[in-house]
């Protein structure tokens, strides 16, 4: 058993090793190392996927130590899907970054040196982040999850600071402090759980946890901490500055992957560990916050004058969609559709949002700023990018045919099935508001302009095509039920009518 499941360890180990190697080899070799590493990860994850597909959920106790002392790694359909998502986004972000960090137009020596150091740190930190992310997805141990969350945060904050300007640092500090508070809340919850039940392993916890005031406090603390990290309204305050002030590839990673990490943990905990302790009211409370997030984020996005912040606020809104899962799945009979929908949304949003940030990066590269008002004529010079933006916009708006639509379809279906039609209304309103801000940008692709006198800087081809591929992927997810087949493996709602603890 161990011989085969040891694959799981490599998923985590590979990016770590890659990060080390990249750090040692220096800025010139780092991109190549990253590419090689991602190839390796792809092949390992492919093998893992095959295993999960074939034999069901995989579990590996690191070093042969079983709980409570050992660290367990676990991969089921959801895990694998998340791994694949991070691979897709990560690889394409890497490709994008290849172009992003080879800016031939910087002339001064210091500028070049500065740029090079940024570049080298980016690759290392990104691999580090990837490792943390993979570890997070695979962890089957609540304390381990805490550790990986922290690693993730640290890597993310460090990536934000790469930008170097004071705004970025401010945003990074704010992000760091916030997520430290979140981590503290989470850890406190973990401590309480351990104090009560004496185990950290998720499976064991799930079996042991009983309804009681202490476990409730623990769950509340954990949920709170994770909500802070996932930036659910009104705890989203740190997100727009952080995401909009970072370098473009970093923004893509943050929006697409990092917030999904904490969301994933929340999913695991709520639906696989404490399903019995979760009630309608708690779910509805989160649902209200989610609805507020959708509306608020969209409205705020509409009001923005800079494109990058607009996209960042769009993330705030989209996070809301994810959390609609909680009220919908709380009504026990209809959990599956909501579960599938939310995960679809997670994946398609990751692809689409990463693509959007990349396009914004291209525009900034081309004209040096991202003021929406002054974008006339630019978009027509970057047709591929604009097209990618439009396609990604489709997913964000939830227009067919796209992954976003499939997600929305499932969520709406569930909400109506479970008699909670108001969430459907919120979902649709969110889509319409999203159309509002997406089209306020898209229209610039069509504005008639006199001769463009803005000198455009060239945008490397890989920077144009990476977002296009990503947005196409976001679109194509809507065409196949493949992810759902994967999800069925180890799904907390295994076609059963009532919610059960997964054994």
């Amino acid at each position, binding site marked *: 058993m161990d011989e085969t499941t040891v694959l799981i360890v490599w998923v985590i180990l590979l990016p770590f090793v890659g990060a080390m190697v990249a750090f040692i080899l220096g800025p010139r070799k780092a991109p190549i190392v990253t590419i090689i590493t991602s190839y390796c990860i792809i092949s390992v994850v492919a093998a893992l996927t095959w295993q999960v597909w074939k034999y069901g959920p995989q579990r590996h106790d690191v070093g042969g130590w079983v709980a409570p002392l050992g660290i367990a790694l676990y991969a089921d359909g959801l895990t694998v899907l998340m791994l694949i998502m991070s691979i897709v986004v990560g690889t394409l972000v890497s490709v994008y970054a290849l172009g992003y960090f080879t800016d031939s137009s910087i002339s001064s020596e210091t500028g070049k040196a500065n740029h090079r150091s940024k570049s080298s740190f980016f690759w290392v930190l990104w691999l580090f982040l990837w490792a943390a992310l993979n570890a997070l997805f695979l962890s089957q141990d609540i304390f381990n999850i805490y550790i990986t969350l922290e690693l993730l945060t640290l890597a993310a904050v460090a990536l934000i600071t790469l930008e170097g300007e004071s705004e970025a640092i401010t945003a990074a500090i704010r992000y760091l402090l916030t997520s430290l508070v979140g981590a503290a809340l989470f850890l406190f919850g973990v401590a309480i759980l351990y104090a009560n039940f004496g185990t950290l392993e998720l499976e064991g916890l799930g079996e042991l946890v009983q309804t009681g005031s202490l476990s*409730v406090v623990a769950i*509340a*603390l954990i949920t*709170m901490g994770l909500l802070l990290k996932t930036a659910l309204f009104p705890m989203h*305050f740190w997100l727009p500055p952080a995401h909009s002030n970072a370098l473009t590839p970093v923004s893509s990673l943050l929006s697409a992957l990092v917030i999904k990490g904490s969301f994933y943990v929340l999913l695991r905990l709520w639906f696989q560990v404490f399903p019995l302790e979760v009630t309608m009211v*708690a779910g509805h*409370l989160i649902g209200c916050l989610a609805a507020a997030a959708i509306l*608020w984020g969209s*409205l705020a996005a509409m009001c923005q004058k800079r494109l990058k912040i607009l996209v960042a606020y769009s993330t705030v809104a989209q996070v809301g969609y994810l959390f609609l899962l909680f009220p919908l799945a709380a009504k026990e009979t209809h959990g599956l559709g909501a579960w599938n929908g939310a995960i679809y949304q997670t994946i398609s949003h990751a692809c689409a949002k990463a693509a959007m940030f990349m396009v914004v990066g291209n525009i900034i590269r081309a004209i040096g700023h991202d003021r929406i008002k002054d974008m006339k004529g630019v978009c027509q010079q970057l047709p591929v990018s604009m097209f990618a933006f439009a396609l990604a916009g489709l997913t964000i708006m939830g227009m067919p045919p796209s992954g976003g639509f499939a997600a929305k379809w499932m969520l709406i279906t569930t909400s109506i099935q479970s008699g909670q039609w108001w969430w459907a209304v919120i979902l649709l309103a969110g889509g319409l508001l999203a159309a509002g801000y997406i089209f306020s940008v898209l229209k610039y692709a069509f504005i008639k302009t006199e001769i463009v006198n803005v000198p455009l800087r060239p945008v490397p081809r890989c920077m144009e095509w990476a977002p296009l591929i990503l947005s196409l992927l976001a679109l194509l997810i809507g065409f196949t039920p493949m992810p759902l087949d994967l999800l069925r493996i180890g799904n907390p709602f295994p076609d059963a009518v009532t919610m059960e603890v997964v054994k």
Partner: protein
Amino acid sequence: MNTDFMNIVAGHDVTWLMAIAMPLIMVPIVLKVRLGSFGVLIVPIAAAPSFILSICAAPGLEVYISWLLLGMRFGIDETSGAFLLFTSILWTVSGVYARCYLFSDKDINRFFAFFLVAMAGNFGLILAQEMVSFYLFFTTMSFAAFGLIIHDASSKARRAGKVYIALVVVGEVLMVAGILLIAGNVESFAFNDVRSGIVASPNCNIIIGLLFAGFGVKAGVLPLHIWLPVAHPVAPTPASAVLSGAMIKAGLIGWMRFLPLGEIALPWWGILCVIIGLAAAFYGVFVGLVQRNPKTVLAYSSISQMGFMTVAIGVGLAVPDAVPLVMTAIMFYAIHHSLAKGALFLGVGVLKDAGGTGFQRLLLFAGLLFPALSLSCAPLTSGALAKLTLKNLLYTTTMPWLAVFISLASVGTTLIMGRFLYLMWKNAGKTKSSPRFGLWLPWTLLLICVIFVTWLYVPDKRLSLLMKTVSLNALWPVATGTFLVWAVLQWGNKMSVINKIPQIPSGDLLVFFEPIVQRLRGDWKTNIGLVFSWPQNVLAGRLGSKGNNFVHKEKMEWMKRWHSALNCFIFKQVSTFVGKVEMQFICLSNAGMLIIILVIIFFFLLTIP
């Protein structure tokens, strides 16, 4: 000719189609070719198939062409044979006449195009044996006639055209409504089924009303006659001839075809028709007498004459048994009136610019006098025959005293003819040059037809009928009329009152309608327009107080439509709000998020069991 051959010819689809299609085939030719001497032949050629058909085809013959429109059925019965004959004669003659009349007109090609289309429509509607094709040809004719009326593009012609087309459209709409109401309940659209269908329909009265009014527009029935006196004088003379002679009968045919004559007694409709008809007969005379334009006078005469036919229809509606007689009476009356009226109109044209030398002038007036007398039902004329049949018809009913009214109206007809002749005498062309050959020849031909054609349809005992027309009963109205005319001329010349008669403007009732319509149009654009754009008005607080804008102008500008209002609402109001609160959030990260987080934790503690 071999009758078998004729039957074969008449029984073939192609012949029937040719009767209608021939004029249409000529249209492109007319439009593209300069009309040289060949032009004279165009209309006769176009009308030839119909003419042949009207003579050859035995009554009762029908063909069904399934692939056209909704399936077309053509056929000929007794009445339609007669109608086709006089119609084709009139169109042919007028066509030949028009070639000369409009010789120097640069738009002659356009004229002929419309002329031919209208002609095709007219033939088609006579031949049609089911209502869809009838409606098709009726419409074709009506719309094409518009081109004839406004031909000279003067302001008068344009006004006439407007009035005409407005009424045509109204008529069409009424008609189509009626037809549709019928069509939903009948097995086939053939007229026999249609008539029984109307009777069976729950909306019987509505249908009859709609159809009566719809065809009434064309037939010039009383309140809908207003286009006639406006249109006839302004149209080129040959056009007036066919309008008044042939096309006006289309309405009549419509009535005959659709109204359930003989199916069921509809006394109220019958009485209504008789009243309207008699009213038209007298009204036409009274208004016509004070007109100064000879063609207008003729137009009013047509209204008056159509009144007689309306009376006949009314009798047919009221007394089903009388229907065969009604048909005969109408047939005679239609033939007689259309040819005579056509001749009169053409005569006006002949005399318009050339009075002729002394003898010629005399001849010409004799030529005018003849159809005039015929219309006044002088003995031995077709008019007398027509009136005789009409009166005979009335004697069979329970209201024989109606015949008195007919006779009285005949006096009026004589008067109006006197008025016409007087006006012609005064206004005829001042030049002494002889009239053009191309004008008087067709006119003469038509005059000959006026004399003979009606008698073709008297089955037998022609002579005895001829004699009957000389009876006192037939004579007194025309004699009285002539006397009155003479008296008025004598007396009037002395007192010179003829020219002091107050003139009723042509189109009488139109004078009242026109301003109303115009007012409506004007108001439509302002008031109704405002009502239809209510959202912006409501938003701008503008409804009910036009011009009194108590809302600031700029606001009105952006509140124009609800979407922009919505936009403004979202973007202007909310954006500032959202922006501010968002700032607050970011500030709170320094100091106040604690409270929010703690409150939320508190809630969680409450909600999780």
